[in-house]
């Protein structure tokens, strides 16, 4: 089973809808250990993305994700703008000028996105960032596909891994991003970026089902 361009577009739109719906929750999480803007940042960006896709449907996976990445870079700002922007730009490059992605190609693209996040933000495991949800998700996706699971099922496993990674950020003491300024006081709070990136993976599982 492959993901069609429509499904990939649907992934982006579902993520936008999730972010919009949980905008205040994301901001509240960011208020606790950051500066109370993660929800409005990402919602502003994904609203712009949806508007761009409405205005001009994209002809290929590369074009689609490049548009998403560029729009996020140009409209979000803060830490999540360059991080989510780079993620999608790397996904675009990895996906290429195709209109379908099979499981391995999708997984490769998502890993490229993860590597983009690391290249940009230098986060490591346990730093209490979006990395801590995205990285286990990409690993779970690879593992499930290697086990021969179809993409849809593999993405469900990835989404579960992301959620587990997200929850595991709660006890962590942040070492990257704004939460790091809080030192020990950052422990006991769920990372907002890990929360939004879990929505991203869950949206993929829904859209590519």
């Amino acid at each position, binding site marked *: 089973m492959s993901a069609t361009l429509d499904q990939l577009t649907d992934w982006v739109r579902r993520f936008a809808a999730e972010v919009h719906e949980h905008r205040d929750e994301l901001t509240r999480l960011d208020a606790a250990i950051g*500066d109370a803007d993660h929800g*409005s940042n990402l919602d502003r960006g994904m609203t712009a993305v949806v508007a761009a896709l409405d205005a001009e449907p994209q002809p290929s996976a590369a074009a689609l994700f490049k548009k998403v990445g560029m729009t996020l870079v140009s409209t*979000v700002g803060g830490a999540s703008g360059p991080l989510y922007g780079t993620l999608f730009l790397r996904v675009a490059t990895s996906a290429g000028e195709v209109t379908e992605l099979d499981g391995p190609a999708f997984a490769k693209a998502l890993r490229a996105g993860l590597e983009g996040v690391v290249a940009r933000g230098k986060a490591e495991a346990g730093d209490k960032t979006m990395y801590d949800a995205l990285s286990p998700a990409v690993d779970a996706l690879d593992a499930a596909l290697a086990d021969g699971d179809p993409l849809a099922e593999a993405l469900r496993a990835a989404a579960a891994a992301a959620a587990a990674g997200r929850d595991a950020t709660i006890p962590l003491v942040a070492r990257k991003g704004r939460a*790091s300024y809080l030192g020990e006081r950052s422990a006991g709070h769920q990372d907002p970026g890990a929360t939004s990136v879990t929505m991203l993976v869950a949206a993929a599982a829904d859209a590519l089902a």
Partner: protein
Amino acid sequence: MKKLINDPADVVAEALRGMDAAHPELRVDHANRIVYRADAPVQGKVGLISGGGSGHEPMHGGFVGPGMLDAACAGEVFTSPVPDQMVEATKNVDGGAGVLHIVKNYTGDVMNFEMAAELAAAETGVDVLSVVTDDDVAVQDSLYTAGRRGVGVTVLLEKIVGAAADEGRDLAAVAAVARKVNGQGRSMGMALTSCTVPAAGQPTFDLPDDQMEIGIGIHGEPGRRRVPVAPAREIAAMLVEPVLADLDFTGPDGVICFVNGMGGTPLLELYLMYNEVAALLDKAGVRIARSLVGPYITSLEMAGCSVTLLRCDDELIRLWDAPVRTPGLRWGA
């Protein structure tokens, strides 16, 4: 949420319209949210740009003008601006001598300015150098973390580096002055109240009537620790001691002593705090060469203050005293 605003989504755009209307000596690109001095680019002078989230006014837009910045990029409230703005500003302030980016050390600001520098290199022929300010001693400096925040030193740096650029120094020399200022400055801040990000609609944190936050930054974030409210005398010690512990300020040329208001603290209290800070510095053998007291790098309506010390020498004092003509800082012009 009680604010003098219309729609929270329009706060930054509308404030920039007001700034534009109130200051004929500035030019504002509203589409890109960039404040320029009206005569930018200045031929032959290194262009200086900075930028950051809004909500810290007068920084940075209020520091645009002769003797200070050539342009400032305004982000959403507490959100770094985007690379497109910085690239556009870089192009428009280059007078042939290159452009210095002055960046406060926050993950978002650093990454966006980094992308801007990459794009500027690719898209334009402009020489770009960047300096990052990271003067906040509340945060432990470490290779494994995001490092220290850029706070009060940024104000002093933009003034001093503006004067260095005005003297006609080249890009490398201007950047060297900037790095020197950052290396010789340290800050520490505290909050009596939280503040409310317009888009969030409620205070970023709750602070009981008898508690305060020590070791805050400028984004309404909670600080390093919460302690019972104390007299100004004790608060001054909580701010000055870690600053003095981090760097030797007892040089013969003294320091610039900057007591900054976070936005909601009256000047009366800032002068009272300055009195306490000056007494502590006197006891520690630190000479005050120059002073700055007022709300210059703020966190919306947060009540509180920060203390910044900058170790001086003849050159820095001369550059500090040089004329400056901006909405936020002005003398000799």
